[in-house]
């Protein structure tokens, strides 16, 4: 147990410190890197709780794909930080209000769960609490049976978002040269070349 405790305190403190550093880092690239550290140690906390499937998904999806794109964008931005800092006092009240509200909500949820346990969302007939079921299998059993409509709806929302992003950014620019591989490989000497008989001293007009 002592190893678990050490690992927990290590990863929990890294998560919190990295979270603070995300906000306080001066360089946005450093912020994103701290965010990645926070994701990563949060995944470690999931593993400690025995939710290794969720942990790996967190790493693959957030750290491996989403955060890479964050980093990608932030690295290419040329942000003027002194200008950003100017509005600090102006935005402080509204930002503080949002942060306070979120903290309040989290305290309420945490105390409720601590005193009454997590709300029992009436686990369906397919949910199994067997110890021999790996947690990927346990998630799959409820996700594709009891919650299949929610799952499909989430998928549809993502699909709409994806198509929306493509529609918003798709532009057919005229005059862009693209490679047409079929046309290129179908070229023969007959279609790709002409033989012209040039008379001496005349050159080719056209």
């Amino acid at each position, binding site marked *: 147990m002592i190893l678990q405790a050490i690992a927990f305190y290590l990863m929990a403190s890294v998560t919190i410190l990295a979270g603070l550093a995300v906000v306080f880092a001066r360089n946005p690239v450093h912020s994103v890197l701290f965010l990645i550290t926070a994701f990563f140690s949060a995944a470690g906390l999931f593993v400690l709780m025995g939710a290794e*499937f969720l942990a*790996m998904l967190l*790493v*693959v999806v957030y750290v*491996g794909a989403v955060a890479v794109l964050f980093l990608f964008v932030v690295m290419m931005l040329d942000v003027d930080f002194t200008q950003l800092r100017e509005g600090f006092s102006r935005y402080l009240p509204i930002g503080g209000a949002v942060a306070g509200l979120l903290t309040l909500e989290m305290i309420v949820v945490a105390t409720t769960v601590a005193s009454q346990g997590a709300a029992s969302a009436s686990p369906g007939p397919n949910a199994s609490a067997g110890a021999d079921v*790996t947690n*990927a299998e346990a998630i799959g059993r409820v996700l594709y049976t009891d919650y299949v409509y929610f799952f499909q709806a989430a998928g549809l929302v993502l699909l709409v978002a994806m198509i929306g992003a493509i529609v918003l950014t798709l532009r057919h620019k005229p005059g862009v040269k693209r*490679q047409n591989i079929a046309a290129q490989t179908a070229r023969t000497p007959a279609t790709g070349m002409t033989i012209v008989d040039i008379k001496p001293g005349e050159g080719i007009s056209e």
Partner: protein
Amino acid sequence: MPEQTVSPWLWFGLAIGQILLITVVLLISIAFLLWGDRKIWAGVQMRKGPNVVGPFGLLQSFADLIKFILKELIIPAGADKVIFLLAPVITVTLALAGWAVIPFAPGWMISDVNVGILYLLAMSSLGVYGIIMGGWASNSKYPFLGALRSAAQMVSYEVSIGFVIVTVVLLSGSMNLGDIVEKQSGWFWNWNVLGGGGLKNLPMALVMIPMMVVFYVSALAETNRPPFDLPEAESELVAGYQVEYSSSAYLLFMLGEYVAIVLMCAMISILFFGGWNPGFPISFMDGWNETARSFVLFLVFATKIIFWFFMFAMAKAIVPRYRYDQLMRLGWKVFLPMTLVAVMLVAGWRVYGGAL
């Protein structure tokens, strides 16, 4: 391997010991694989390759190691020092971390994670950070361009690798690498590349053989190997993200790349070619000493890794480099639809094919 019944500190010590053992064995084998790599290219190009240091030039990698370590480490003036130095370390660490779940032989793995295959996918997808951070921290244009290219490239090919892994998981019914290997024991027609699960699953070979090829090509792209070494592309970007790196930092990048390549070779062997299964029933080994049996099976696994490493080296020697738009086209317009269809076919076969 060790159960939690032993004292936690002993367990901790054992785990550290195993990690050190695997790391040391791996790094020493990489020194020789690197030599083999160079010999293979040399052979294809009708050169001799390294042949001066030691017999047959076998100690060339160690000479290179000493050369790298003794050189001066130059940090560019405008570089972000911490990230600049962190990037190569991250590359190596992540590449080595993947080996934690590889089953080398029956019972020979550091960590028997239930979602081992996802862990491998996660570690290989994180490899991109070393490159992006290195490219950005160098504060120079060529490294940055190389880093951007690599980010797009690795994220794209990760998608097809993920789907290929899904087909294998569907066939094996498990994400535990040990179970996946165990499922492929017996004759070689139980290997996943031939459909897995014996002769009645043989029609799936029509899907799985292309999947194996897709995985191999995606692995080349994911590890930035030629013909997909566009992040480096020395003809356009000098050396891409590692232009500003010298000495040990460069060595770490190279090392990380090779560790990742060997990891990919191990993954192909495990996912498609039965891992440590030699391809015929191994019941005659039942009476053997446990360690001897495991060692022989480990040699089988090592042989498969070496074969795939040879294939990686041949790809570098033979295939010309892709253009960037061709690379993206291959990833998104060819591999992604192919693997999606394959996932559907395999899932359909598992449900309606009547074969389990």
